[in-house]
């Protein structure tokens, strides 16, 4: 009898201890916040996707992986820049891995597809990665899709004026034939046409094209410059062939045209790149202390990364930082279908290395654009000097929203 009683008391004590410890543990560490992170680790933008992931990770590391007492758990997924692959990867993260917040994807048409999917998951908040198509937030926007980066059109604001200041009154456009370059060309032409510039010829070339001889043959004699919106290998191929054809027109570049790999280009025309102007949301030589601190932090955390964070690293960083800042603002409270969290995101003014970013009514960023010019430093290396910094660029590029049309092959037009 005595022993049974003792056993009972012991069991009671043990149960109390377990309950107290368990309760305390529960109170001390709320469940982690799961964030899905999607970028292209395969396909044509694999290098960019990897750097985008670095940018997003940097934002998490700056907070030591904890926001408002809740641990941040990142679940990564990959796509290959195809919209259907991006949606499959997102669906897996949301429905199978049960993430609370989704960050991604990388490229334009992926962004549009993921935005459409986000409408079927009203209790999850979607935040863009680095996709820059206008239509994502401009046409049928989704109430739970947020984009804290400016789009391809916004990145070119100010370039039209810069081109006219250089004396380029007539230009020919050479761009790849898909949504992102359409936006870029529109960003350039909206301002350029309004100020009286003329674009007599636009050449749309397939993505990944190798032969530009037919395009080069079409360049009219009377244009003052070429607006080249090509990325990576396409831009190098074009420059080589233009050099061989004896071309001598000055260039105006898109946001991913005059990147570091082009500046390291070894052809004879290298010196003629000096003076090339371009528009982008990032400028290597920007001298604000916030930017310098960001570059130093990136280099410290990722010794295997690029000498300076790429556009993808910066933009993923912005979106992930906004994700975490919003979480901080609501003290990690994601209850009630994340309603409070979304309100906080909508009101958030993001302090970023490239200035403040805020959102418009479509949950699209209003932010800073840089106009840069290629110059040669004392050692003979080429780099992008900041010509002008334009703050508060909105998605309709200053045009009233009712009159604004999404860019396409024929829009805008000023021959």
């Amino acid at each position, binding site marked *: 009898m005595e022993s049974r009683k003792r056993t009972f008391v012991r069991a009671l004590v043990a149960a109390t201890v377990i309950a107290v410890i368990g309760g305390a543990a529960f109170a001390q560490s709320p469940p982690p916040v799961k964030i899905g992170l999607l970028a292209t680790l395969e396909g044509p933008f694999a290098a960019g996707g990897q750097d985008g992931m670095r940018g997003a990770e940097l934002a998490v590391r700056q907070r030591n992986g904890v926001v408002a007492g809740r641990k941040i758990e990142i679940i990564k997924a990959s796509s290959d820049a195809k919209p259907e692959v991006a949606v499959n990867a997102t669906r897996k993260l949301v429905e199978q891995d049960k993430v609370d917040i989704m960050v991604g994807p990388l490229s334009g048409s992926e962004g549009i*597809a993921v935005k459409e999917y986000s409408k079927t998951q009203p209790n999850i908040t979607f935040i863009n990665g680095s996709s820059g198509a206008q239509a994502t937030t401009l046409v049928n926007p989704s109430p739970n899709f947020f984009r804290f980066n400016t789009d391809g059109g916004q990145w070119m604001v100010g370039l039209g004026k810069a081109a006219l200041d250089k004396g380029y009154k007539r230009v020919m456009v050479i761009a790849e034939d898909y949504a992102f370059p359409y936006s870029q060309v529109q960003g350039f032409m909206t301002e350029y046409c309004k100020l009286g510039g003329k674009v007599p010829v636009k050449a749309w070339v397939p993505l990944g094209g190798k032969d530009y001889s037919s395009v080069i043959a079409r360049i009219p004699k009377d244009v003052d410059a070429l607006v080249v919106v090509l990325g990576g290998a396409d831009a190098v191929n074009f420059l080589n062939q233009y050099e061989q054809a004896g071309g001598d027109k000055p260039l105006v570049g898109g946001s991913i045209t005059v990147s570091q790999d082009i500046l390291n280009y070894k052809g004879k025309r290298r010196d003629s790149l000096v003076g090339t102007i371009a528009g982008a949301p990032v400028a290597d030589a920007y001298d604000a202390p916030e930017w310098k601190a960001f570059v130093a932090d990136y280099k410290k955390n990722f010794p295997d990364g690029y000498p300076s964070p790429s556009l993808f690293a910066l933009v993923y960083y912005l979106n992930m930082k906004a994700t975490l800042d919003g979480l901080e603002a609501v003290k990690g409270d994601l209850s009630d279908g994340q309603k409070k969290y979304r309100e906080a995101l909508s009101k958030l003014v993001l302090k970023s290395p490239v200035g403040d970013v805020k959102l418009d009514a479509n949950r699209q960023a209003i932010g800073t654009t840089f106009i840069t010019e290629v110059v040669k430093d004392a050692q003979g290396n080429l780099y992008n000097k900041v010509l002008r910094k334009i703050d508060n660029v909105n998605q309709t590029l200053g045009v009233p929203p009712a009159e604004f049309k999404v860019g396409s092959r024929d829009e805008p037009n000023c021959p």
Partner: protein
Amino acid sequence: MSAANWRGAMNVQAPRAVAPESPRAGVAPPPPRRFSNPVRARHVVVLALLLAYPWFATPFFTFQIGAQALALGLIALSLTFLGGSGGMISLAQMTVAGLAGYMVAIFGSAATDGANLGWPWWLAVPLGMIIAVVAATFIGWLSVRTEGIYTIMITLAIGVGFHYLAVQNYAVFNGFQGMQKVFPPTLAGIYWRAPVPFYYLTLAWALAGYLFVMYLLRTPFGIALQGIRDNPRRMHALGFNVTAHRVAAYAVAGALAAVGGVLFTWYNGLVTPGSVGTGWLINILIIAVLGGMRHPVGAFLGAIVFVLLQNFAIDVFDRERFNLVIGVVFLVIVLFSRDGLLGWWAALSARMSTQRGGTPWRAASGRSYAR
């Protein structure tokens, strides 16, 4: 694969055709039963599992794993039929599937400016399939004049050619963007792209395609086709029109691929040049080889493994190198089995039946469909 190999491969069917009550010792060859296949316990179990699947699986598993695997399996089935029964490996099956998807989008509705006609689904879908079957017949007519690796080359050339046409043509195919928001119609009050209805839609078509191929293999046409696969010169000497049979096989495979293609387009909700790019042409071959080509069910087994790997390989290994897992699994299956997963199954059941005192499948009967 040589004719002798194909005959060996086909023998695996023999025990299945044996009536359940007949002795398994194989002393006397069982009576040939050509036009019916006995329904066995395992068929009932598999069918019941397939039907009950959405009731215990999450919507994610129902839609992204189940429905996607069935739609892809149907496209791969067209290649299994062509390759396994006709001896022709065509890389253009995804092209036919993609063309059907494109046509349904163009005739029907999609969120693209100007390019689509907006016809009702009951007109757009059959029309799209007819065009795809005509295209498949044309591809067949071009490529049956070649054998082996040359067939692969010519169909690959057609596939890549169509990919570039779709990328660069804006008037019809809307270029790089392709067709967005191509969804199945809402019929009888049911939104057919919701996970459970879409799963049953793909299941119904996959079963129909599977049973159709099983039936076709026992018809005079199917038997003649297998004869042509094994020895075209002899079949020609016997008075069969070899070319006509092969072109007809391409048309049949085209119809299967077209159904699968429309379902796959609805699954993705879009069709772009990427959907008919080289990657997908090869993926269909991978699915067919992975599953095994000796029996139509291989296409679906291959598709399930393929879809599972695509989705979950990233969870089992370093996330930035997950393609390595996919590659290694493919390599292991192909390296250690002569005929994909079906080859393993055959080896396993052979060992089981030897242990139970029966004869290995290979010795059970010398009969094949062609007899």
